[in-house]
């Protein structure tokens, strides 16, 4: 008889497997899209591997090859923690097929554990990309004994487990607290964002500790940093010792603690799994509606309002959608309260540059956070099973997309204005220069909205099982997010460099023209796509 947990895990994997879809799909167009998706994700894995290899070369050349295992463990652990934390609500809790699964003869703890393993296996290619590429680097520079290779591979399979379990447990606590409130989504979103902010704060504190080591040389700082990470985060140290020194106790600790923690967490989660999910899935009905005067809206506004309600109805979507904006607001307030000199001293550990030098980067710094995610990348796909509504109603695709874009503009522009204003005040930016930065910021919001919509419509996916698939993991989001972040940073740096030689207002006008043209082109592309049959 087959193990029931394996059967469940297999079913979960198959239900969202694109390989399975490709295998049984007869539609050539769909098959091409699936292959395109594979290529896109494959390129991202390659990019990650290239980054890891480059890092290994740097480490190797500076004689820090011994720190590679620690770095590998840290990277995998950090990625595993982040990936799991943002997915817990949606995968582990409050998922669509909960009723069906719980009606089958599975223990609550088994369902939760299988869901966890599903997340683990799905994210494994990311961790494997890091592990394999860093093993290659380690092999080249350290030339370890042959048995180190399989040991590295096997132990690196255990590396994501502990951070994933910690993230799941935190997600479980948030779900448990949130489930007790009437406004569950809002409470869960606030708690999630607070925790993310705490992690950011902790990261700065840890960096601060490293920087106060008074070690001047960068090599020593890096080496010291890796040692400190291994001291603070024990599994990284266990992995490092196991690979570098073949520490048997370290091997046992890494494997043993991972398995023990897995058992303990799922015993605890299993106990209240049913009650948490029941509370999360139940919705209060007041049944006290009295008919009042209704308001008429344009189609575009009606769609934008629908988008607003869609966002506020989902913890995953809301967390993703507003995280950058919350960070931007905090950055703005911190800049206002502490002032530029203090911030550059604490954050950069460097003598503050002349305020005027960094001013041209203000809109780009704000955009880095506000434009991190655009709701338009996900909303076309989020129609999902509701697509029959917009498809059978007399809504022109043009107006549908305009409504989706209007919502993202309403969401991002106020935060962009607030952040830029805070930065301008703290850097004593002249009024006209500030006004130009504001206009550039709004133009960047327009670009982010329209470009996001191009990505969202071009890579639309309606057949998702869990909204996390289109909010966090879709090709549309990846294609929008990574180039956008890098281009934003590059343009910000370029603005600072140019600002040392050219008048700031002139540079801003130049960028305004560039961004304006890109936004207009993206908008035109969206309008063109609206004429095609995409659904």
């Amino acid at each position: 008889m087959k193990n029931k947990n394996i059967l469940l895990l297999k079913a979960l994997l198959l239900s969202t497997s694109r390989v399975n879809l490709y295998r049984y799909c007869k539609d050539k167009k769909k098959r091409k899209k699936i292959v395109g998706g594979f290529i896109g994700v494959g390129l991202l894995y390659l990019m990650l591997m290239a980054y890891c290899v480059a890092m290994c070369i740097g480490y190797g050349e500076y004689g820090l090859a011994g720190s590679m295992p620690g770095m590998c463990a840290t990277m995998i652990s950090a990625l595993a923690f982040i990936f799991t934390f943002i997915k817990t609500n949606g995968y582990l809790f409050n998922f669509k097929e909960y009723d069906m699964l719980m009606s089958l003869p599975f223990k609550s703890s088994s369902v939760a554990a299988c869901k966890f393993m599903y997340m683990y296996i799905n994210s494994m290619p990311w961790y494997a990309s890091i592990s394999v590429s860093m093993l290659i680097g380690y092999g080249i520079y350290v030339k370890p004994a042959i048995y180190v290779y399989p040991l590295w591979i096997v132990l690196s399979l255990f590396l994501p487990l502990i951070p994933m379990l910690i993230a799941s447990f935190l997600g479980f606590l948030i779900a448990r607290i949130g489930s007790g409130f009437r406004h569950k989504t809002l409470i869960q979103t606030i708690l999630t964002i607070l925790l993310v902010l705490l992690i950011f704060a902790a990261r700065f504190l840890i960096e601060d500790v490293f920087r106060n080591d008074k070690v001047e040389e960068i090599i020593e700082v890096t080496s010291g940093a890796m040692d400190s990470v291994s001291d603070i985060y024990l599994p990284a140290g266990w992995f490092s010792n196991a690979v570098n020194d073949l520490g048997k106790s370290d091997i046992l600790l890494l494997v043993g603690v991972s398995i023990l923690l897995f058992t303990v967490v799922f015993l605890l989660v299993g106990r209240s799994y049913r009650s948490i999910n029941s509370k999360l899935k139940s919705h209060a009905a007041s049944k006290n509606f009295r008919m009042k005067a209704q308001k008429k809206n344009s189609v575009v506004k009606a769609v934008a309002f629908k988008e607003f309600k869609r966002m506020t109805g989902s913890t995953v979507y809301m967390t993703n959608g507003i995280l950058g904006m919350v960070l931007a607001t905090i950055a703005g307030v911190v800049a206002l309260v502490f002032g530029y000199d203090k911030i550059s001293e604490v954050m950069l550990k460097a003598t503050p540059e002349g305020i005027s030098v960094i001013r041209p980067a203000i809109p780009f710094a704000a955009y880095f956070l506000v434009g991190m995610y655009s709701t338009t990348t996900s909303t076309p796909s989020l129609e999902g099973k509701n697509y029959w509504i917009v498809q059978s109603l007399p809504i022109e695709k043009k107006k549908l997309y305009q409504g989706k874009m209007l919502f993202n503009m309403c969401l991002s522009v106020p935060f962009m204005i607030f952040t830029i204003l805070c930065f301008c005040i703290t850097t004593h930016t002249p009024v006209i220069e500030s006004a130009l930065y504001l206009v550039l910021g709004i133009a960047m919001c327009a670009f982010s909205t329209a470009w996001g919509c191009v990505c969202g419509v071009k890579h639309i996916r309606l057949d998702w099982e869990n909204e996390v698939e289109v909010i966090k993991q879709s090709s549309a989001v990846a294609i929008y997010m990574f180039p956008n972040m890098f281009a934003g940073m590059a343009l910000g740096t370029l603005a600072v460099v140019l600002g040392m030689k050219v008048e700031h207002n002139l540079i801003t006008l130049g960028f305004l023209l560039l961004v304006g043209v890109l936004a207009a082109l993206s908008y035109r592309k969206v309008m063109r796509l609206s004429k095609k049959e995409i659904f």
Partner: protein
Amino acid sequence: MENKVILEIKNYSKTYGEGKKAADNVSLKVMSGDIYGFIGHNGAGKSTTIRAVVGVLDFEEGEILIDGHSVKKEPMECKKVTAYIPDNPDLYESLTGIQYLNFIADVFEIGTKEREESIKKYADAFEITESLGDTINSYSHGMKQKLAIISALIHDPKLLVLDEPFVGLDPKASFILKGIMRDMCSKGTAIFFSTHVLDVAEKLCNKVAMIKKGRIIASGTMDELTEGHSLEEAFLEVESEK
């Protein structure tokens, strides 16, 4: 009242995957004032035809005209006069009932007074007025079905298309819906709906089409098809012959 062709399906075919025809050369006409039943086994091609009529499903062969407009070439003109209620309505779960109805009313550009009257009339009839302030995710299946029906009725469509409309409705709601369908039909609305419940079809419809393996195997007025027998008997007889 002048009888006008509201829905005309001409040689419509839909092929899935490797040549499997879900609908094969389907042709029928629904006139204003008709209540046209579309019956057949599970997987016979009813939903595939209905979804093509309302513009949800793309198709390659044939032509579908609504009020003289082509579904393929003038989809917006067709959708403006059509209302559709799917068998299992997935609605926008995070909207409240009233927000969803206002969304639909905004799309059909219905004035405030008109929409208020319509919403009140139908929500009272289906006894869900008090729940309109709650989000749709708190609704039962039947309540969602009722909300989908109200949203389809508030813009006074020329063609009402329903896919298994009585599934999930309580007896009272089914009775009310049948009354509304008769009322709309007397005012000239054309109604085209699929059903498994042959008793309901027999009592409600003036015309019926039977579909099997994607092909229409019989169609006509109720009297022509039943010839004094029950619809169930007629259906089983025709179905076994073809």
